[in-house]
């Protein structure tokens, strides 16, 4: 009696309230755009906040994790907090000496394939359930939103994963370099997602931006 289930973003409730136009990605209904608020182009010209929680994620932990992932064809970064693109798309981040976090790119299934290969009998390799809310903050004023919510020195952030607090919520944060203005990926516990989303959206709105659907930021994913 196994049936496929409808995944819901941790922000589903707030998206419903904000007039989302839905699209399905990786089994999750996610806003493709919003009927209300600023136009996506205007947001992107300043700062845009998008929910990218639909991207498949996988955590692998244990003394055999790195070797196992390497065996799966994943090129694991040598140093902790470093990240590296996967051959088939997506990103692998070494979050600890014996733990990695993988996230796929939009429309890809590399992480699902790796996940399927991970069974519970694999000695020294354990699945870490990753249900993080995934946010994307982009646009030239993205850093302005972050400087109002986080004490990090964003000019010196580099491209390594950082564990920090944004608006007092514990998050993992990764800067995605860009020629025009860097974008920022933010992962947090799904339970904190709605509060964080509303806080960042309010600040983005104050400085000329706002929330956008996945269609507006697909090129970054």
């Amino acid at each position, binding site marked *: 009696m196994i049936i496929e*289930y409808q995944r819901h973003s941790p922000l589903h409730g707030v998206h419903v309230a904000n007039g989302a136009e839905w699209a399905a990605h990786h089994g999750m209904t996610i806003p493709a755009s919003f009927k209300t608020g600023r136009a996506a182009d205007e947001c992107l010209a300043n700062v845009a906040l998008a929910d990218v929680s639909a991207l498949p994620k996988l955590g692998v932990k244990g003394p055999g994790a790195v070797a196992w992932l390497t065996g799966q064809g994943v090129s694991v970064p040598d140093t902790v907090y470093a990240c590296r693109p996967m051959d088939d798309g997506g990103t692998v981040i070494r979050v600890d000496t014996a733990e990695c976090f993988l996230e796929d790119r939009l429309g890809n299934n590399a992480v699902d394939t790796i996940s399927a290969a991970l069974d519970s009998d694999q000695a020294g390799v354990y699945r870490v359930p990753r249900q993080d809310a995934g946010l994307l903050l982009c646009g030239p004023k993205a850093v302005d939103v972050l400087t109002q*919510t986080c004490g990090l020195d964003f000019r010196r952030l580099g491209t390594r994963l950082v564990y920090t607090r944004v608006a007092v919520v514990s998050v993992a944060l990764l800067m995605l370099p860009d020629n025009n203005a860097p974008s920022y990926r933010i992962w947090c516990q799904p339970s*904190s997602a709605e509060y964080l989303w509303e806080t960042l959206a309010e600040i983005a709105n104050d400085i000329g931006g706002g929330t956008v659907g996945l269609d507006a930021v697909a090129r970054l994913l």
Partner: protein
Amino acid sequence: MSDRLPEPYGLLIDRDRQVPFQFDGREYRGYDGDTLSTALWAEGVRVLGRSFKYHRPRGIFSLSDAGLVVETDEETNICGDRLRITAGLDARAANTRGGAANDRLAILDRFGAFTPVGFYYKAFHTPRFMFPFYERQLRNMAGLGAVNTNKPVRRTAKEYAHCDVLVIGAGPAGLAAATRAATLGARVILATDQPGAGGSLLYRYSADAAAAAHLSRLTEAVQVHDNLELRVGTIVAGHYADGWMALVDDERLTKTRAGAVIVATGDNGLPAVFRNNDLPGIMLGSAALSLIHLYGVKPCRTAVVLTNNADGYRTALDLHAAGVVVGAIVDPRADGETSAVSGKVESESISILRGKMVSEGLPASGKKGTVGVRLDSGGTLDCDGVIIEVGTAPADELIRQANGHMEYDDVLGRFVPGTLPDGVYAAGRVNGIFDLEKQIEDGVSAGTAAAVHVGISQQPFVPRPKRGTSSVAVSRCPVVAHPKGKNFVDFDEDVQVKDFVNAVQEGFDSAELMKRYTTVGMGPSQGRYSNFTALQILADARGETLAGKALTTARPFVSAVPLSHLAGRGFTARRLTPTHHRHIEAGAHIMFAGDWRRPEYYLRTGLERQECIYQEAANVRQGVGLIDLGTLGKLEINGADAAAFLERVYTGNFANLKIGRTRYGVICDESGVVIDDGVICRLAADRFYVSTTTSGSDTIYRTLQRWAIQWADLDVVLVNATGSYGAMNIAGPKSRDILKALTDVDLDPESFPYLAVREGHVAGVPARLSRVGFVGELGYEIHVPADGSLAVWDAVMEAGKDAEIRPFGVEAQRLLRLEKGHVIVSQDTDGLSNPFEAGIGWAVKFKKPFFIGKRSLQILKERPLTRTLVGFALAPDHSGTVPKECHLVIDGDAITGRVTSISWSPALRHVIGLAYVAPSQSEIGTTFSIRADRGQMISAIVVKTPFFDPDGERLK
């Protein structure tokens, strides 16, 4: 009437843009770039505000003090000297009755003799009960305006910034320091409270071509460097540990972390102390020059310049050049100024009165202006303005906040930086360097040192210029006593010379004590213009010099900071379960559980809270209910030694826990105090799934991580899955039938008995199901990935529709578990509870070689209990007051315990509860007393737990 000067005067104003505004109900016009004070002064307004205590008329004094404090419909207590006018501005002078010009409280000035500092403490202390009345009256008459509690909420941001070097002050030294550090590669923030860079270069060196060249070169250099950020209109209000600085501008507070700090804040003019030295028209030379050069405003028509230094002579020349008639320079020094500038003054036919001192300002009617001055030698001079240049004090507040040491320099006659903390530098006039070229040299040196300090540069040390003599003030300006007083030292607080004399006479004869007695330095200017003079007066009174003396402790903030900026945007995190919005739709009344928001109960139309809770509980007992348990802590313990790890952490046995089974577990700390509990599920030989309390999830995970690191011999891998799983409990006699239709797990009691755990799917979502009995009914905890929680919740509710399934909240769950006598850690336990007194001693297994807290518990077990948790009931016919949680258990005169849980039980039809009592009161059938509200004593009887279904028949 307009006192505007023609161009090129007025660097900061745009004469093409007139700005209409209102002050005290009258309409005026200024130029874009004007502050409220300068615009009013240009319009001929001389009374800008009223003083704090005596309501004396006040005009412009320093252009950065509390002479003009205004309020608008939206803001309270704004400094008019800094408030830039905008079209439509409607400002009112604060602390007046009837406006600044005609303040009805001006009469208070006549009673000054009866109201020395602290008079209210001396006069109104008896009768004691009247003090609040007096206090209210005094507060109504004195103060700094009224808070408008109806003003619109203005959202203010707070921001973080980082730099290698923060330079405070954009005068010659600051500009030189900033550009130097930037040239060496440092990221620099240059902050100035002024509207633009240049500082004193903009107004004090008007006839100096070299100064103009420096200004041009340095401001261009600021533009060139991408790594130098100029922040204008920004007050650096506080200097905290580790280079944290508070930068405040009109919009926000910026918390700035600086690797090194260069304080180039210059200095502040000192007032000359003589009778009526606060009249409108009497102002500092820096204010007069700023009015002329920055705002194109004549400070007065006819001026007397009171000075004891070369700066005053140059100021007189600037006034003269701007068309102000300089009636005379009054110089207390017997020989007057001996430098070349003296000759220039004389060549302009300006009279110099050497060896003279102003003893009194002569007021216009109502003290609303100045009509002249009286000299100490007799005689008067007519003027409508007195320009004061009698010396300065370093603007060293930020240095002192950083625990920098300021020491008195006899040669310079002022305090100069002594030992400064690492990474803190002073440059320019604040550093006792006055010559312009040397100020720039000093800035370059400080900029280099700062860049080296933060590791940006390896440049060799650039020697600091030596402090020479001061062109500002070497000789002291006399403090002129007057029998009628009103010779003010601190204009913010109306503190006069006699107040200091009184302070010393009453024994308040140190700087800190005197400050508290007189309130000197406690006003909005924070003593910038008064502290040094106050210290001088104190030293004189004690017959001492200033050598070895120290100013009072400097604390943030340097100047007034709007409370809205300090508050900023508030961040109060909240955590929601994946099904939160379903609860809202179902009418949930949400309660706070730490950061979590949980349904306390679901409101039913027409029912009170308590009845809603009883109905939810009854629905579980009689039918089926569903509760969201997403807030529970959820940990995965993996590895070959996972069981051994749990054996060490929990008090119970887990090595023998069979795969597919669950067991209740208790965690104690090293002292044997219960810190958490939960259910341990064994999924495989090397894989456990553990729940913790909602409040304990993060703490317990951290604790377990710490032990996992410490016990490096164990092969164990921990995963905090709290946020990744949603959880719910379907409970009640009908739960099995509903769930059966949704899952591929065999729910037959034989194959899935009580306390078992299974993995499978519910509504197509991968799930872990466990049979637990917290609420005392047949039930299944369903743990699913967070992104599948909503689907499962909806599916269960839909499948249970015919069985009239209803969600139940935290309160119903508390009631149901109370009926079963189950404890809730942190409600029925406290920070001292051990398992034996909490009634869960059965979960402690001493046969294990080790577990955390074992040694303490072994000792405790040998000792007699001091209290014990018991179940109790009130009489079935009890109809009066019902005790509440935390009400005390009383035995004679002694407090022997407290109620931890209590409720009326819909299943039992009477009140039941748990309470700590003395061991002597714990026997079944013992009666004890609970002191309820208003001291009422309620009798309770100890009964056996569980109260309901003692044999657990309903769980099967």
